[in-house]
Structure formats: structure tokens, C-alpha cells
């Protein structure tokens, strides 16, 4: 039985402590190994090597780990104010002068408010502008205003744009210099703050445009991206206790998609499951499904992802459980599929 002190100072006895939502919620498990602000530190390291790298944000420097860069390179950091159209138009202008901008805001604002500027000013002239989108998918309990559940669906139709959905701090640290080095625009689904460190346990390096098989397995093959690769690996361990042997293929680059690696894994009689922190419309599942159909594989694929609806506000663990992203829900889904 807990004791809660209300705002008015009165003490009420017997009310359970409420689970609360937060703008910046961590999806790391209690006790999990994490790395602080991997994007910010990786950008500083890249900028030390390349003087053309600059950073911009639209009043969200602290919330996209851009403040680390701003502190290290104040003369190369540009605060554009809460003005996302200006943010990306100006990033295009800077790239036109030969600079390599990294421009950060929340994914919802990049995808929904500034699409026209990303499309015409950055993607059409194929400029090296790197769009850093915070709070991708369901990584905040703040509700639809901040949950970018359809960002990949919006961006996949944009020619020239490379889309990266990193799993953890390892992915982010290794991706940043590759994003800076690659020609043309990129979109990074940013994980910020204390970001889980997962892939250091595997024989893995991030390669832009490549999918990687993280573990083999005879019964089921998971194809996953973003933080759902972390959940996929956890679910694979949990399913082993049910004598289910699960392979995990991590596809951090959503576009261009490494269909060859993924199709080679899917062209078996194992149960195929995609896992993504995104609506099942227009994201990883449909990317995989499209590759499967194009290749003529008559293969059933089971999607695990967010439903095609506006999601509830609430605490992140509650919402991940509710919408099927939790390890327990993944395990239950796979066991049900296997009958």
C-alpha cells in the first residue's frame, strides 16, 4: 500500500502510484547497459574530422542531443528557432555552399510540417543534408502530436532519401560518419538520451545500406529495425526457453533496402516475422512484403508493428504492451503463430 501526497498537501492513503507519461521516456530496461547521447558525441567526433559539418536545430537542441555539438562547436551550430520550414530550407542553402548540415527536430515536425522543404530543396537537388528526427514511432507517451508512427511511410516515397532506423548506441555511433560521407540526403530516426547499448554483444558493424544477420535459428526468422531489433533479440532468447529457435536479421537501412540479404533469409520454410517501431502501413513490413512479391516468393510474412490508428497517451511500457511491441507480446504472438 502506497502513500501519495497530493498537490494540495493532503495525504491520501491507499491509492496506487500512478504510471505517468513523459515527453522523453526511456525504453531501456531497468539495469540495461546504456550510452549517453551517442548521436551528439558521434557528431562531435565526425565534425573534428570534417570541418564542413555543421549542426542546426529548431528549438530542440537539448532534446535531440544536438546540444553536445553546440557546446563543442558553437561557431558551427545554428539555432533556427521553432521554425521547421526555415530549418530545412536553410540546411539546403548551407549544403549548396558546400557544407554538410545535420539538422535536428522531432520526427513528427520533420515529416509532417517540413515535408515540402525536405522534398524540393534537399532531396530533388540531392544535397548532403542529414535530417535527424527525434521521438520516432512510439518513443513518447505524449500522444499523436509527438508520436511519429508514420514517418517512414511518409518518407519512403521521397526519391533520393536514405532512411536509417538504428537499434542502439552502436548503430548511431557508427552511422553518423557514414551519413556525413554519403552523397545525398539522409533521415536518421534518432534515439537520444541514455540509449541502450545492445549490438556490441554481437559480431556486428553498421554498414549503410546493408542488413545483417545477428543470429541464426531454425524455426523462425525475425526481420527487424530500430529499437525493435533489441526487442527481437530479447524475444529470441525468451523463445529459446520454449524450444523455439529464432534467427534475427537487422535492417537498419530502410531505404535503399538490402533485399538480397533479407530475401535469402526469407526463402526458407521458417515462420517469417517483421518487427518495427512504426505503423504496419508503409514501413518495414511493407518494404519486406514488396521485396518478397517482386522476387516472386510465395511467402507469408507476419507483421509486428503499431496499428493503423492514432495511439493513446500514457506511460511508454504501458503503451508498448498495449500495442504489441513488448517482448511478452512478441513471444505470445510467435507462439500463437506456431500453434
Amino acid at each position: 500500500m502506497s502513500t501519495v501526497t497530493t498537490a494540495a498537501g493532503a495525504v491520501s492513503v491507499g491509492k496506487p502510484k500512478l504510471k505517468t507519461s513523459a515527453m522523453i521516456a526511456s525504453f531501456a530496461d531497468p539495469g540495461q547497459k546504456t550510452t549517453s547521447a551517442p548521436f551528439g558525441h558521434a557528431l562531435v567526433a565526425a565534425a573534428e574530422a570534417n570541418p564542413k559539418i555543421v549542426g542546426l536545430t529548431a528549438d530542440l537542441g537539448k532534446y535531440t542531443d544536438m546540444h553536445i555539438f553546440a557546446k563543442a562547436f558553437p561557431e558551427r551550430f545554428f539555432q533556427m528557432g521553432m521554425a521547421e520550414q526555415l530549418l530545412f530550407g536553410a540546411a539546403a542553402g548551407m549544403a549548396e555552399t558546400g557544407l554538410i548540415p545535420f539538422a535536428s527536430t522531432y520526427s513528427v515536425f520533420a515529416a509532417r510540417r517540413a515535408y515540402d522543404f525536405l522534398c524540393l530543396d534537399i532531396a530533388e537537388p540531392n544535397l548532403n543534408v542529414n535530417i535527424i528526427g527525434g521521438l520516432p514511432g512510439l518513443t513518447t507517451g505524449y500522444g499523436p502530436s509527438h508520436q511519429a508512427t508514420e514517418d517512414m511511410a511518409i518518407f519512403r516515397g521521397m526519391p533520393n532519401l536514405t532512411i536509417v532506423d538504428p537499434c542502439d548506441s552502436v548503430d548511431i555511433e557508427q552511422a553518423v560518419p557514414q551519413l556525413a560521407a554519403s552523397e545525398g540526403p539522409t533521415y536518421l530516426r534518432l534515439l537520444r538520451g541514455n540509449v541502450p547499448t545492445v549490438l556490441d554483444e554481437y559480431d556486428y558493424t553498421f554498414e549503410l545500406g546493408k542488413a545483417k544477420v545477428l543470429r541464426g535459428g531454425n524455426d523462425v526468422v525475425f526481420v527487424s529495425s530500430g529499437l525493435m531489433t533489441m526487442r527481437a533479440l530479447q524475444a529470441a532468447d525468451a523463445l529459446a526457453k520454449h524450444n523455439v529457435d529464432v534467427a534475427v536479421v537487422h535492417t537498419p537501412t530502410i531505404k535503399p533496402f538490402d533485399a538480397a540479404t533479407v530475401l535469402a533469409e526469407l526463402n526458407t520454410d521458417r515462420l517469417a516475422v517483421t518487427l518495427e517501431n512504426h505503423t504496419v502501413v508503409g514501413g518495414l513490413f511493407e518494404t519486406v512484403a514488396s521485396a518478397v512479391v517482386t522476387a516472386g516468393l510465395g511467402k507469408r510474412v507476419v507483421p509486428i508493428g503499431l496499428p493503423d490508428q492514432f495511439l493513446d497517451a500514457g506511460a511508454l511500457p504501458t503503451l508498448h504492451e498495449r500495442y504489441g511491441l513488448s517482448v511478452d507480446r512478441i513471444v505470445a504472438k510467435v507462439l500463437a503463430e506456431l500453434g
Partner: protein
Amino acid sequence: MTLSSVEAATASAPARERVDRLRAAAYRIRHHALNMGEVQGQGYVGQALGAADMLAAVYADQLNYRAEDPHWADRDRFLLSTGHYAIGHYAALAEAGIVPVAELETYGSDDSRLPMSGMSTYTPGMEISGGSLGHGLTIAVGMALGLRLQGSASRVINFLSDGELDEGSTWEAAMGAHHHQLGNLTAMVDINALQADGATNTVLRTEPVTEKWESFGWYTQRVDGNDVGALLAAFDNIASVSGAVGRPSVILCDTKVGRGVPLLETREKAHFMRIEENEWQICRDQLTAGYEGTASA
């Protein structure tokens, strides 16, 4: 620098020779535009005629560029935000020697480097892809920041229309330019008081335009945009107050759609002006008569 617009307007009148040179350039730009319009049988000829003096002031007097090397790193940047004014811009690029005059007749044709709406990926000297209105000034802010960061003395001039003042992004950029003290940025606003659905004051009232820009912290001048002498004086005033760090400047240019061709000046104003097949030569004749008449006056 706290000069007000009025206090700063102290430059002496531009020399007669300089004005005449610009009037001649503007005449040729208008003539090119009419020829291009005739090949197409349509087009934004009215806008090109209205903006020809502004374009002449930029290309024949202000812009530092190398015709043989449109990507020369130290060039000044001229950004056409209003993509549909490309017909006028191509005429100016021909006047500048960046695009061959003979190529102008391909305007708007299949496989031409001169599409109906200006795009940087198609045309030498076209710095940005305009057309989706309200973009140009945001890109200009980034270019001005990028050039300044890299120690360049190049200036950025963004051409936009009064219709683009409807777009919120224009004002995001106006705030950003002032915040970052972009003295190397100049905006030219073509106030022809006309947009796609009709007169600007019936579509979305943008006035008072001068007060808006002044309140956003810009060094603001409003001139007759069809008076090349006034345009030159405005640029001269800017030169006396600008620098890499300072206030961005704007020249608000009141212009007349179809300017220089009485037949079109008096025609019912339309965003997309219709001109009959037999009228193009009349337009050219009127243009030449007007130019020569005042030139000899």
C-alpha cells in the same frame, strides 16, 4: 547600425550612363521574353515584363558572376523563388551571357534546359528549384549563413513575389535572417498586386508590407520597381549599410504586370495572361516604340 530607411537613402542619383545601360538591358530581357512566349503560345509573359527592370538591375549592375563558370565559388547568388518567373530569368541569363540567346526558343519544350518552372538541376545559373512558393528566402538564409561561415564576401539576393508573403515560411526566414544578422542577404519583392486567384488585396491582404519588413528588423526600402534609377539608388543605399554582419535588406518593388507593352498593361490582369497568335508582333513593336521613344526623349 541603426540607420532608418529614410536616413540611409542618401546616395546620389545614379549616373545617366548607368541608367541607360540598364534600360537597354531591360528592353532586351523583355524582347527575349516575348519571343519565348510566342514559341510557347502562352506563359508568364506578364510577370516577366513586370520584373524585367529588377532582373536588369541585378544582372547588368549588381551581381558578381562569371558567365563562363556559373558555379564559380565566389559568385554572388541570385535565387529565383518564384519558379514561374523563369521565363524572365532565362531572358536575364541570356542577357548575362550564361545561357545562349539561341537556346531561349526551347523554353518549355521537351528536353529543354529551360523548363516552364525554374529548376537548379536543369539550368546553368539557376541556383535553386523554385515553384513551391515560400521556399526561396529560407534557402537564402542558409546560403548567407554558409557563405559567411566560410569567409566568403559573396552576397545572396532572393527574388520573391508579393504572393509569397502569404506563406508563413517567408516570415520564418525573415525572422531568421534578422536574428542571425545577415547583412549579406538582400530580398527583392515584386509587388505586382496580382496572384493566381486575383488581386492580392482580394486574395489575402499583405499590406502594410513596408511596416511588416521594418518590424521584422530588415533595412527596408520601397521603390517603383519599373524605374531602374530608383532600383540602382536602392542598391547603392544597401551597399552603404551592408556587410557580412548587419541587417538584412529588402527592396520592395511596385511593378506593373505587362510593363513596357501597352496592349498588355491595359489587358485584364491575369496570373496566366492570354495572348493571341497575331498579337505577339504587335507586342514587340509596342515594346520597341516605347523604349526608343523614351530613349530619345
